[in-house]
């Protein structure tokens, strides 16, 4: 294909693509490589005049059992949140794409996207108000129910999962919705006319055809949740120490950027490894 291009076309291609690549270089590649460089240093050059290059920052991850344990904890959190997002988000998308038509769909769609328009910190603090002892949720339940309810959800693992699921749910709904909407309604009618039950249609037709969208949504949720630090810190209280919060501590509180950078790249490597291991599944879903 590239050989077939005329010189003028190639020039045009280069001139059209170069802004995008330049942007990628400046916004993604340069900061990332600066961090990669930091992760191999003994100290930041501006703080420590006799800085050197070392692998010790990566070594710390393996020497101190705390870090692998926290990474595992964060990965589990990512799985839980992704699972709940799929359980809630996929049916929502299914209803939106196949059952509701016209203006009602637009209104519901707006409600799905609406939380995205507010700052995530605001959303998490709102959850703190709802979940805290004697907060909005408890008061409402106590008002509606005759017996005394004590949920005590704030500062628990459940609170972290609730906050994260709420934050990332729209990703799953949007990607699944797009995949489901692309499925021709005639296919479903055809299946129904052949006597397929609703469950069979879902299992044999809708789910396989929309799997790429669902998986794309799952990846979009899983990756940021594993590195999340703000939600666990605010909603998790004393249980809110995760891999992401430890990285944040290195940058903000302890001021050990090299270690923070090294821990970040280990996280990146692990996430990429997981994606690579699951890519056969992803590929099969696409074909």
């Amino acid at each position, binding site marked *: 294909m590239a050989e077939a291009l005329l010189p003028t076309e190639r020039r045009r291609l280069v001139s059209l693509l170069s802004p995008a690549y330049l942007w990628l270089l400046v916004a993604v590649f340069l900061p990332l490589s600066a961090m990669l460089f930091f992760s191999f240093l003994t100290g*930041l050059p*501006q*703080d420590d005049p006799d800085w050197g290059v070392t692998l010790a920052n990566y070594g710390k991850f393996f020497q*101190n059992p*705390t870090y692998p*344990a*926290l990474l595992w*904890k964060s990965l589990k959190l990512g799985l839980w949140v992704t699972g709940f997002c799929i359980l809630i988000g996929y049916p929502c998308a299914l209803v939106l794409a196949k059952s509701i038509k016209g203006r009602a769909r637009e209104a519901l769609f707006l409600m799905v996207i609406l939380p995205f328009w507010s700052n995530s910190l605001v959303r998490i603090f709102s959850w703190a108000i709802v979940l*805290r*002892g*004697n907060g909005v949720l408890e008061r409402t339940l106590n008002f509606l129910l005759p017996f005394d309810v004590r949920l*005590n959800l704030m*500062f628990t693992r459940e609170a972290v999962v609730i906050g994260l699921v709420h934050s990332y749910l729209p990703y799953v709904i949007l990607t699944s919705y797009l995949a489901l909407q692309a499925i021709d309604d005639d296919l479903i009618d055809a299946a129904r006319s052949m006597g397929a039950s609703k469950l069979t249609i879902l299992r044999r037709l809708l789910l396989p055809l929309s799997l790429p969208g669902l998986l794309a949504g799952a990846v979009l949720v899983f990756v940021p949740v594993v590195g999340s630090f703000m939600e666990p810190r605010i909603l998790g*209280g*004393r*249980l809110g*120490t995760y891999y992401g919060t*430890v990285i944040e*501590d290195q940058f*903000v*509180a*302890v*001021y050990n950027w090299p270690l923070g950078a090294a821990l970040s790249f280990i996280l990146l490597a692990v996430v990429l490894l997981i994606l690579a291991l699951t890519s056969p599944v992803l590929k099969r879903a696409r074909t």
Partner: protein
Amino acid sequence: MKNGILLISFLALGTAGACADEIRVLNWQGYGTDLKWSVEAFEEATGHTVVHEYFNSEQEMLTKLRTNPGAYDVVMINAIFNGQAVDEDLIAAIDTSKLENYAGIPQTFAADPKLVHDGSVYGVPWTWGLTSFAYNTQSYDKAPTSIEALWDSERKGRIAIRDDAVEAVQFGALASGQDINDIQDLDAVREKLAALMPLLRTFWSSENDWNQFMAAGELDIATFWSGSASRSAAQGLPVEFVVPEEGAIGWLDSLTIPSSSEHKEAAAQFIDWMIDPEFYVKWNAEGAPASANAEAAAALPEDAFNRKVLGDPAVAARIQFQDPISDEDRARYLELWQGLKAAQ
């Protein structure tokens, strides 16, 4: 006559113009130096203008000093970091004879080896305070007197501490009867803190955070700073600060002049203003840490916390002032603390 007034005002303008500098202050936000009424009064009295910049951690402050020579004229440095700043040549010796209010600072602070190096003063003792705990007066019949009040299992889920490795370890040291500056038995500290973790509701991260938890009635007792406690009480929260029998962690904040400052005289004037008893009495009414100037403390009303409690010699005897912490110890404390948090 008219000419005379004009002449005088011209003269006044001229002199003010000649020595009017812009001084740049580096400090925590909302920590005394940037009080609006005080800055305005200072600007009116001296003609210098004051600009503030803030830091979020001591490490950040040191980095700012290293990377921006000449950018700051007055820097607030905790005494335990003063020596490091002197070693790196970041701050200059201060001619204390130019500070009118310096005489009021007692020898215990003025001659503190953390601030005086080779006979020269590198930091003017400004404020001091305690890290201990405060309790909700509505949830206790009798004021707790022991640090063990934090380990009260009956109040499980109503206790909080700050998420800070050094502070947590030093609390553990106090509770296990050790010197906070010379912790021999770190395992005892670990054990003590491990017992505390399940009792905690959460970690508090800022003064505002602390106040909200207390106001919502979610906490009975939590570690706190003496200055912040008096500020919370001044805002009407039912809290009282405790200096337990086992002791409390003491800290001293100093005002310094960077060696790269180009307005050293104006900076000294500002520092003198900051240790002025008149300024301190007004600041204390809004909730302030204890002043390092004895005359300022003596000028407070008799029932003021900073005079009544912190001025009590029996209390003073229980205070363990923080010494500088080596990088190795800091790393050890951090590892211990992260391990405890991760195990939750």
